[in-house]
Structure formats: C-alpha cells, structure tokens
C-alpha cells in the first residue's frame, strides 16, 4: 500500500514537473525576429529591446530591432560589446566584440551572469563586469569580476583585482565593478569595494595601476567632456538603495539628480548636459545638473546609449 502510494505520488510529481517544462517550452520565443533594417552602428538611441532580448536602435520615433541577442550592450566609435547568455542546456556566457556592422570579431567566455559593459570613447577598449559566486565558505557570497580587453591588440586583463593598488585597497575581499573610460583610451574610472566600503578609483590600463579618489561612488560614468562623473550613491535605505548623483572631478562636489527613485544602472551620457538610465523596464533621461524631472524616453528597454549620426560610417547606416 505504501509502495503504491509512493509510486502514484512519484508519477504525479513527474507529471507536474514535465507539464511545467512543456508549458514553458511553448512560451519561449521559437525563432529570432528577422532584422527589420540594415544593422550597422549608426546614429540613434541604442538599447537592448526587453521583449526580444535583442539589440535595437530608436530613431525618428521608430524602433529597429537587430538580430543580435544580448543581456547587456555598449557601443562607441564603431565597436560594440555584447554580453550574451545562451541557455540551451548548459548555460554559455560570453562577451562578444562586434564591429561597426555588428559582426562578431572576438568572443571571451564570462565567469558568471553579466552586470555592466562599456566601450571607450574611441572604440578601442572594452570592459565588462560579471557576478561570480562560490568563493567563500558559509555564505551565499556573490562577488564581481571586471575585465578589460584591448580590441586593437587583443591584450586582455581578466581581473582588475590584480592591478597594483595602494595598501588600503590590497585586500582579499576586493571587488571591482563598473568601468568607464577616459578619452585617451587608457585611463579609466571604476568602483572598488573592500570591507563594506566602496571607492571611486582612477586606473591606468598600460601601467596596471589604480588609486582611490573618493568613497561611496558606484558605477561611475564619465561625461563626454571628461570633467564629471555620474554615479549611483548608496543611501543605506533597504527599499531605495541608490540615488543618482553627479560628481565634479575638479571641485569634488556632488550634486544629487532629480530622480527620487532608486536606480541600479551605470548611467550613460546623452550629451554633456543629459544622462540616461534604465529604471523599471524603461529608459529615462535627466538633466545632469540636478534640475528638471526624469523624462521617459522609451519603454521596454535597457542598456541605453546614444551614438551620433557621424558614426554612420557606411551608407547602409541611414534611415
């Protein structure tokens, strides 16, 4: 009797499990949408279209979805980095470097789920941050790993924790995330955390060094003029953990921006006066001086960035 009950229960549980898998299988998008237009890194508001999980560009009120699937996407000056997760069986995670025509030129495997991606203003350096887990005993323990790839020489820095840091940042629990590059294609800013504190660091790719500038700065984003950094600042509140701010690098003065909600994104500069970010599934823009109010640019989108029309290097980029 007990055997029979166990067998019946086992069959029922197997049916529930198999049924759920089959239902979810049916819900998965069967085929990638065909690109609806030529796909080159031309001018417009580039982003990841949340419905299809593909890179798209918005211009003139219309959205063009490409065939390139990414979780995170960043592009500048004819180079793009796409952090991709393929989930058919054993998950495969890659950073894919794309050229101006969105063709794959290089692929680097990732150690964990993607978090941030950036390309230097001149298109030479690509950086990305992923989450890694399982490095500690007795904790859920997630940490970050940040890598920089020189797309011109192929030189690869797999782990920014291995740079030369001053003593206060030399710690086993050091975590680095959220790189943003300066115009010289070598200097960068990022967040380094140890002992529960975050620091804005300024680094040098060629010298393999970095030094702390200021505390409580996360996910820096350097303005096009190189003078300010937009970032998220930890508030200490559980329900609204981050507020977006702008830091003036000369005066080291911080200005809170006019977004009352918490933002968990690395901001993008649309121009020297405006930043953009993803919040609650939409892309918003906001004046970088603390004035104004958030304006919803597009819905169902993340990883925003504007490429100028001048970057449309080939005739196919128009439209």
């Amino acid at each position: 009797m007990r055997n029979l009950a166990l067998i019946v229960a086992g069959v029922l549980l197997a049916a529930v499990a198999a049924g759920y898998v089959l239902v979810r299988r049916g819900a998965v998008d069967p085929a990638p949408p065909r690109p609806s237009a030529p796909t080159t890194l031309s001018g417009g508001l580039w982003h990841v279209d949340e419905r299809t999980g593909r890179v798209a560009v918005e211009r003139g009120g219309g959205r063009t979805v490409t065939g390139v699937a990414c979780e995170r996407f960043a592009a500048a000056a004819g180079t793009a980095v796409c952090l991709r997760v393929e989930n058919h069986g054993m998950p495969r995670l890659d950073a894919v470097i794309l050229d101006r025509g969105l063709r794959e030129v290089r692929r680097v495997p990732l150690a964990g789920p993607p978090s941030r991606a950036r390309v230097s203003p001149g298109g030479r350096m690509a950086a990305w941050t992923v989450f890694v887990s399982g490095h500690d005993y007795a904790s859920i323990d997630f940490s970050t790993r940040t890598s920089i790839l020189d797309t011109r020489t192929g030189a690869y820095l797999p782990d920014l924790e291995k740079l030369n840091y001053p003593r206060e940042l030399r710690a086993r629990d050091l975590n680095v995330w959220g790189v943003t590059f300066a115009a010289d294609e070598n200097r960068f800013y990022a967040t380094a955390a140890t002992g529960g504190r975050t620091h804005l660091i300024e680094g040098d790719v060629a010298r393999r060094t970095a030094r702390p500038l200021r505390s409580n700065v996360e996910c820096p984003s350097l303005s096009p003029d190189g003078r300010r950094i937009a970032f998220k600042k930890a508030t200490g509140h559980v329900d609204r953990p981050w507020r977006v701010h702008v830091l003036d690098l000369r005066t080291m003065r911080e200005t809170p921006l006019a977004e009352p909600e918490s933002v968990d994104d690395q901001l993008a500069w649309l121009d020297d006066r405006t930043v953009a970010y993803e919040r609650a599934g939409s892309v918003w823009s906001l004046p970088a001086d603390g004035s104004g109010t958030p304006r919803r640019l597009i819905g169902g989108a993340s990883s925003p960035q504007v490429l100028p029309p001048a970057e449309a290097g080939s005739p196919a980029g128009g439209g």
Partner: protein
Amino acid sequence: MMARYPGRFGGHVYIAEVGREASVRRGGRVAGNVLALGTVSLITDVSAEMVTAVLPLYLVLAVGLSPLQFGVLDGLYFGVTALVRLGGGWLADRGRRRKLVAGIGYALSALAKPALLLAGGSAAGLGAAVAADRVGKGLRSAPRDALIAASGRPESLGRAFGVHRAMDAVGAFCGPLVAFAVLWAAPGAYDAVFVVSGCVAVFGVLVFAAAVRDRREEAVRPRARASWRSDRRVWAACACAALLGLVTISDAFVYLMLQERLGLAAHWFPLLPLGTAGAFLLLAVPFGRLADRRGRVGVFLGGHLALLAVYALLAGPVSGTALLVAVLALHGVFYAATDGVLMALAGPLLAEESRAGGLAVLQTAQALGRFASSVLVGLLWTVWSREAALWAAAGGLVVAVAVSAALLTRRVTA
C-alpha cells in the same frame, strides 16, 4: 556510474521495500535504512544542486537583482545554521524524534524551492527562501547521521556512512546535469528548473516518510543514561574536529588556488567541484570499509595526509593537467576518508538516546573550525601570499594531525 552503488548492495534499491529490511539484513549487507537515507540524500542533493547551478543566473538575469545586496547576511547565516544544528540535535534526542526533526528539515528545504519563485523580485523574500533551505539542511544533518549510526552494526558503521556519502555525492554530481537538461528543453526558463527541483525535493520527502525507519523498540528498553556530556572521548573527538577544521583550507579556496595556478579560464570554475565529488563518490565506500577493518582513527587521520598532499601540490612546482587531476583526486580522497569516517568514529561513543545531540556538537565544532579557517586563510593570502597561506596551513595540519593522533588513539580507540 550513477546506478552502481544501489546495484552493488543487495541488487535492488526499491526504496519502499528497504525500510522493511532494516532489522533483517544486518549481516554482510548494508542496512536498508542506510540505503533509504542514502536514496533520500541523493534525491535531495539533485534538487539542491539543480538550484545552485542556476541561482546566480536567475537572480541577476530574471529577477534583475544586484547580488551584492546579499553580502550583509553572510556572517549571520553561519551563526543561525550552527544554532539550528545544535537545536535540531537536541530536539531529535528528546522523545527520540530523530525522524520527525530530520523530516522537518527535508520538508523545509523542499518548500524553499517554490518560495524562491514566489519571492519574485523581493530581496528579503529571496534571502528568506535561501535561509529556509539552509536552516532545513542544518536541522536534518545530525538526526540523519544518528539514524545511520543506529541502523548499522557498530563494526560496519564506516561502510554504512560510506554508502550514504557516496549516494549523496551521486546526487550532487547529477543535479547540475538535470538542471541543464531542463534548460535544454525550455531555454532560459529558470522557473522551470525551480519547479522541477521542487517536485524532486517533495519526492525526496515522501521517500523519507515512507521508507526511513526510526528504531523505536530501544526507546523503551531501560538502560543507564550514560550521557556523552561527561565522556572525555567525545570531547576529544570534538576538539580534534575543530582543530583539524581550523587547518582545513575551504573548498572554495582550494579551487581558487588551483584556478590561479593553472591560469584556468573562469568559466571552468564551477566544474572543479565535480572533480572532487567524482572521486568522493567512487572512494567513500572503499575507505569506509577500510576504516572498519583497519581502524577509523587511522583512516581519518590518513585522509588528512591526502589534504596535506593537496597543499604541497598547490604550493609546489607541478603544473598542468597533472596538477589538476592530482589535486581533485586527492581532495576527493580527503573527503572519502574523513567525512563519513568521522561520524562512524564518533557514533559508537555516543549513547543511542543522546546521539543526535552529540553528533550535532561534533559537526558544529568542525564547522566552527572551518569557518575560522576560511577567515584566517583569506587573511594570510591577502597579507602574505598564496604560498605562505598554504605552508602555514600545511604546518598547522601536521601539528593538528599529531595532536589528534595522540588524543584519539589514547582516548577513542583505547
């Protein structure tokens, strides 16, 4: 490989039947209750490792959570798990409710799987679900080991624990593969992995309820309450477990050091534990039998020499595939010769009616040592270097093994 252990002992492992065999087949065979508990652990570990394999991807990509938010809870988890383990052992002994307490532990972990889905994007909810899973694990391990100890003859306890740990390791090995099979069938559907994992876990609880027996007949037998609390041998075993735990470099650090030495691409990192688990599942039974025949203290301490060899290899000149294979194999040998053997060593020292509590204290002592070790090794690695941390741990291990040999041979085997 997967079906080998059940096939080897008694030819069939129809779990519903094995409970009945418990009191009958005690001679050359592994007790039915041990196979039943092994089967439950196998099923439960498949369920747990399925979730582990996709949890980071789910949290970051599907929920959109920043996992660093979890960091705050780390130390707390360790303390809570330790308290729950001690409490679980104590409760299980009172009125001999070992099966009930272990069952609650399994059920709690099973409920945690759908809770992960229901928590949605709430960091607090997700944290609570993961905590429930851990509390369940802490609650069940001591009563479960007490049941294993009660199910076998004292002279074959090493083998009994070896069989249980081998089946457990099979589950850990298969879990990620099942998760990938679900993702293959329904690409990107992490929720489907959790639902399947939940179904597997519920089946494990049902098998536990139906097949595992708590021997009650001895409860009514009048006997002197010789408590282990006044038994110096038990405290000697706890001291050795803590001391050896203190010089045991945690798995995560072993894999990190191996990764650094080999310059292994980071995406191979999650596969390293499978190497240890593979060696563990193949060797747990042979080492358990060896412990029964040649002495458990000797095998237990010998296993730590395998760990010493791991340290020496990680600090030494050997590199490449040879290093990878040798380190993972020896790491598996270490677990096969120590994990179940320690329980088999301590089981007979503890009176039946207070065994779960005693094992809980022993396991907590070991966990405490290992927790301190992970802090210390991390510190040494940061302040000095990887080699310095390894040589310090190796030196400590030699001393700890010598002290343990003196303590255990005098007090435990005498």
